[in-house]
């Protein structure tokens, strides 16, 4: 057994765990944070994406012991003081989710992108989220949602529209 201290959604946890335990298992099974999902076992789908010290990471490929001393944010930690994160509002407003299974991972990946690139082009958004699979939405509205959230987070009042990708 290994002893770790990890901060998850701003709460500190001291835990004794099996060294083989995956971070996603720690979150889902030990801490009962079931908003983070497992959609594959080969790190393709991104449903398990969480923030570790601000970077989006697929938690199915991280051992829980590797998160020792780290700050982890899951979908349950996106809203603060009862107020939704702009990415959450944008996902709903733009109908960027249908079944909602991939949604937590996609929102986390988007938060990571927007922290590094506050005004991404549509091509940059598509590139950033291509490690997160969605089978329902065809990504169209997810791209719109990330763009909308970016606009709000920059404090802009009108959405920045990149020239439509479809026209050339």
């Amino acid at each position: 057994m290994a002893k770790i201290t990890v901060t998850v959604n701003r709460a500190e946890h001291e835990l004794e765990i099996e060294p083989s335990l995956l971070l996603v298992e720690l979150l889902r099974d030990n801490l009962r944070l079931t908003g983070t999902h497992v959609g594959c076992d080969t790190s393709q789908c991104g449903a398990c994406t969480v923030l570790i010290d601000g970077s989006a990471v697929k938690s199915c490929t991280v051992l829980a012991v590797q998160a020792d001393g780290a700050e982890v944010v899951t979908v349950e930690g996106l809203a603060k003081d009862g107020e939704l994160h702009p990415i959450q509002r944008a996902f709903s407003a733009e109908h960027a989710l249908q079944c909602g299974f991939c949604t937590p991972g996609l929102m986390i990946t988007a938060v990571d992108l927007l922290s590094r690139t506050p005004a991404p082009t549509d091509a940059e958004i598509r590139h950033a989220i291509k490690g997160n699979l969605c089978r329902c939405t065809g990504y169209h509205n997810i791209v719109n949602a990330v763009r909308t959230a970016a606009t709000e987070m920059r404090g802009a009042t009108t959405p920045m529209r990149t020239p439509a990708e479809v026209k050339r």
Partner: protein
Amino acid sequence: MSATAPTTYIGTRTPRKEDPKLIQGRGTFTDDVTLPAMVYVSLVRSPHAHARIRRIDAAAARKEPGVVTVVTGKDAEATGVLPVFISVPGLNGTKHMPLATDKARYAGDAIAAVVADTRQAAKRAADLVTVDYEPLPVIVDATKALEPGAPILHEDLGTNLVFTYPVKGGDIDKAFRDAEATVKLRIVNQRLIPNAMEPRSVVAKFEAGELTVWSSTQIPHFVQLILSVNLGLSQNKVRVIAPEVGGGFGSKLQVYAEELLVAHLAKTLGRPVKWTEDRREGYLATIHGRDLVEDVELAAKRDGTVLGVRIRTVANMGAYLQAFAPGIPTILHAFIIPGAYRIPAFDCEVRGAYTNTTPVDAYRGAGRPEATFAIERGMDRLADEIGMDPAELRRKNFVPSDAFPFTTISGITYDSGDYAPALDRALEMADYKGFEKRRAEAKARGKYRGIGLSSYVEICGLAPSKANSALGVGWGGYESARIRVHPTGAVQVFTGTSPHGQGHETSWAQIAADAIGVTPNDIEVRHGDTFESPGMGVGTFGSRSLAVGGIAVHNAAQKIREKVIQIGAHLLEASPADVVVEGGKVFVKGVPEKAKAFGEISMAAYLASNLPEGMEPGLEATTYYDPPNFTFPFGTHVAEVEVDPETGTIEIIRYSACDDCGRQINPMIVEGQLHGGITQGIGQALYETAVYDNNGQLLSGSMMEYHVPTAADVPAFALDHTVTLTKTNPLGVKGIGEAGTIASTPAMVNAVIDALSPLGITHIDMPLTAEKVWGAIRKAGEARR
């Protein structure tokens, strides 16, 4: 009295009621359900595609710490057989048990179930179960499986032939005799893996004689029915809950082995049991889709008039028949091949074959994408053959708008349609007229640009119960709804549909809100719990939920409306004909200041002391709606692509679609269904394929080898619509869940072949990967040298 309410919320982009929980990680999916003292199942699956099971040794597994039990096929016979709900004439069915007893018939066939205290312990122990297999010859190819001397999967049948299904109309011989032009093409409509993002999961508990099962399913009532019958439990003691379900696309339109097994284990062990598939396990054990080889021939006059279509199809059914499998390449495929066209002669024969592969069943579109691909590729080849513009060829053969109701040569009656406006609009959106200039401009840059279209008609709204019965479907095609208004005026809608992303909590609330004069926020829609909903719900598949289930909600809401009007008129001392129900109030026309609040009416219904003479107390309604016909959405999609001859890569430059699903309840949801559907169809055209080797090993066995489209693989989509109301139901709605998938695959392939047509390329098998396209370009270059 006005029978139908004005539409305040129907047709609006009402925000989804589903979203708040899902965007906060508060949705409960089946694997999120954890119960005290729960045990976990891991399945031992055959590594061989075809092998006799000589002996199973589970001694080592049983000794592993944490192991509760190991069961094999003989122990699990109490689960009964897996159901098949559709029969076609001459069907060679088989007995399909949750755990194989005599032979493994595909790689992934379950042989034993290991139950342990933890998921990890169950998996470790499953690896310790030793099975002595006698490998048998393997057959993977469906056409070869039907040849003499092929290895036989089910010895009692003596053949791998599952069925021979003919659909004929008109004089096909005359059509080909009179033909001035014919085309012939072989289409491999490759096998696909559905890949709902949520892997399947089942949890069961058995307490005080009552079985509760949580399952990631599209059809909880069917699961309940089969569990009750198979496990010998009274149906009122079996509760099936489909909680949040993370996508289905047909892959959860089943009663699966694991559902029977987990329920049986919970019942016999007296402890809650959970099984959740790994993705790689799901690739083997969750149904696949498509997998047809089709020989398509068209006969036509030189002016483009199509005279006849002949098609011979072999359908790979996999190793066993799953719930709806016999109906997919037959009913849902053969009848719709004539599509949007007036075709005087039709001759179709579909043969199904057992092979040593994962069972094949419904995958988004289910038969209709294959049918549309066959006719729409055929039309493009014909256009090429006679030197006619593909759009004009389609227009020339469309069923004209004044011909409806129109009975196709396959015998289906389309109630309504107006195909040319949707084609025109799609061509306009795509700037079809300006295309040749863009082709030339691309050529100057060394790229090949192409444009392709597909015009489709979908058969959905499954289905009138009598038609179901005539076609061999062993269950009615109705849907149910119950509306319960509490004394305070709180409204709950219980639906027999079982959404898993389609937004019924929102759309059904919009429908009910309009009828009873409240807002969607005043209405809670509940689904997927057999203890709450009406006696039977059929479920969500085949683009049926709105055109059947939505109408059931509408009809139930109309009953509530009628009673509210009657009570309101009584309390206001007015004639029911003068009573208005709107904005949460009931009042006499022109006197809104003397209104009764909706809650006052509902309270009166339960106080029951001042109701119209002879009226029953209470405010509830239950309806079952059986549609009189299918519905037939249609549209045209146009894809424009650019091919890089150096690498074979395809860039989708532009995608335009004009669809007609009748009245739209929530346009935002309609567009979302199309975006996702189009992307899945593009996946088939360009990226996805399930590949088996000759030993029956699934080579595309994980998401590493099987390419589900990513955000970087697809473009933004330009959508528009026409509205042709169906007369089949009171709201004029049709269905949109599968249209995108049906339309986009042929549009994409037609665009790529058009791009490469200057090289003399007329065909590439799907998926059109860069490697295949590059190879075709090289081969064409060599041929021309």
